[in-house]
């Protein structure tokens, strides 16, 4: 793969603050206001102000949701980018984890000491239904004439995973049950609930095998992180959370030319991040994970891509309670996208924020029942293409 491992980084890079808005179906706040709320909360937690921030990185997915072209420019002032270096980064749904990943090299390069990393998404403006925006993600010539909707592609992947790995709907539904229950302890949660596998199996069939309760909702929300150099981190906090590994990969757009049961692109990204973090046996060395879960089967898919379980094995471990908050390797203790909500770019930042709080033992009722030192989060995006991974440690 040809990636460099000898880094010129003298200073490590740390997360010192995190902020998050309520995740909701419709927010009164404008996109800029949502970004501001999350950014302000993150700065407050870090004990810093905008004056201390050198650089800003913004993550937001399709401009078509908020309904503003050049969305990064629009969100700039809400995200603190006033007379500051700012860029926006974008890898579809993978953006949420990619925002802190790119903030990492802002600091590691020596260019910036304190970076405000903001993820925001407001899906509710899209009329008649935000789902319709996904009409435009397909290849305009080869795919669009078939009028695909987004859920088709997930359904196809879920079906392939079920066929190849022998997982049944009731096995996969356990992810939804676990995450929505975890979310009951998350004040940000939009769709936390105590549901059963039966509830999932009785919910509306959208695109078989995908049913209503297998899917995360449409959400408005924002989340932010303050990322600094080691020097600054030591001045502002006793418990910095170090960014130990970053990884990202983008596969081609032709998802109809690949095996859909295993996310190869995520695996490449995970290997890149683990190599940087010096992790050789992730299934042993990772204590808690936030794998991206826009659909319930996706969490299993990603657990395998992240090498936290062997391919086709995750659903079996799930049944044994392995991934519960009181299990061997808790996943999505936050409640994930299925429980908290899915404001595309902000969702990934939310997951990283959750691991930040977990590693500082500040997650309250959501704190996992085992000591935590190393954690991994991933996000996924585009047409089954983007894998972004971040490894954190305390």
């Amino acid at each position, binding site marked *: 793969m040809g990636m460099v491992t000898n880094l010129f980084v003298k200073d490590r890079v740390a997360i010192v603050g995190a902020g998050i808005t309520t995740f909701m179906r419709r*927010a*009164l706040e404008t996109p800029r206001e949502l970004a501001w709320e999350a950014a302000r909360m993150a700065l407050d937690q870090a004990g810093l102000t905008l004056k201390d921030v050198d650089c800003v990185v913004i993550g937001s997915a399709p401009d078509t949701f908020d309904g503003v072209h050049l969305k990064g420019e629009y969100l700039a002032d809400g995200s603190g980018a006033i007379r500051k270096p700012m860029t926006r980064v974008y890898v579809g749904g993978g953006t949420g984890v990619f925002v802190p990943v790119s903030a990492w090299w802002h600091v590691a390069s020596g260019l910036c000491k304190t970076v405000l990393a903001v993820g925001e998404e407001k899906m509710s403006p899209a009329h008649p239904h935000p789902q319709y925006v996904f009409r435009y993600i397909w290849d305009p010539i080869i795919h669009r*004439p078939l009028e695909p909707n987004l859920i088709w592609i997930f359904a*196809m992947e879920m*079906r*392939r995973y079920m066929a190849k790995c022998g997982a049944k709907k009731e096995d996969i539904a356990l992810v939804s049950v676990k995450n929505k229950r975890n979310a009951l302890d998350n*004040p940000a949660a939009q769709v936390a609930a105590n549901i059963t596998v039966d509830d999932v199996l009785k919910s509306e069939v959208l695109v078989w095998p995908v049913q209503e309760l297998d899917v995360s909702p449409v959400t408005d929300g924002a989340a932010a992180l303050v990322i600094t150099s080691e020097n600054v981190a030591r001045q502002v906090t006793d418990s910095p959370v170090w960014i130990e590994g970053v990884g990202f990969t983008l596969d081609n757009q032709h998802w109809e030319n690949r095996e859909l049961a295993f996310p190869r692109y995520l695996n490449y990204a995970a290997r890149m991040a683990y190599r940087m973090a010096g992790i050789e046996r992730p299934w042993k060395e990772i204590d808690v994970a936030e794998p991206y879960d826009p659909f319930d089967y996706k969490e299993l898919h990603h657990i395998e891509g992240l090498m936290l379980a062997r391919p086709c094995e995750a659903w079996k471990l799930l049944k044994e309670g392995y991934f519960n908050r009181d299990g061997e390797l808790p996943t999505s203790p936050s409640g994930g996208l299925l429980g908290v909500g899915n404001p595309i770019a902000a969702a990934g930042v939310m997951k990283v924020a959750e691991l930040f709080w977990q590693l500082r033992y500040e997650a309250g009722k959501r704190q996992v029942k085992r000591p935590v030192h190393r954690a991994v989060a991933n996000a996924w995006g585009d047409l089954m293409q983007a894998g972004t991974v971040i490894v954190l440690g305390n």
Partner: protein
Amino acid sequence: MSVTKLPGTKLGSKEMYSLPGLVESAPQAKYDFSAGPTISRFLQGLKEGKILGRKCPRCGRIYVPPRDYCEYCHVALTDWVEVPDTGTVHTAVVSYISVRRERLEKPEIIGVIRLDVPGYPPNGYEFAGLFHRLCVPPEEAMSDEVIGMKVRARWKPKEQRTGSILDIECFEPVR
């Protein structure tokens, strides 16, 4: 985090649409996409009732759908090859909702078809394939037997073909 009330004000659907100062904006964003030489030729092939693939002069891979370039060798693809319009079903699903999230009267059956294009290992990670409709009843699409089922393209009659992916009506089982 010790905060129990996070920032953000929830709105119900009726509340949102009766907000004072609500602004409606219907953007006009229209584009004309050039297909380029490769896709143009591919569409022409569909009009003629053929599925065309394009070959990499370096590694020999035949791409369907064809591209201008080989993503592995990063060189321009050259030879055109007519590939069989038969294949096996890689995955299949049944859709009950439209692109606008409305209930469909008649469910749509779609999937990914792994085409019988030479050069790819039989159960390899990568293959030449198409995303298209399947002409099977919903119950069959949901059965275990459909995965790996042999299918063939059902072409629209010549007069109805326009040079589009829809010149293939669907893929139907080879019985």
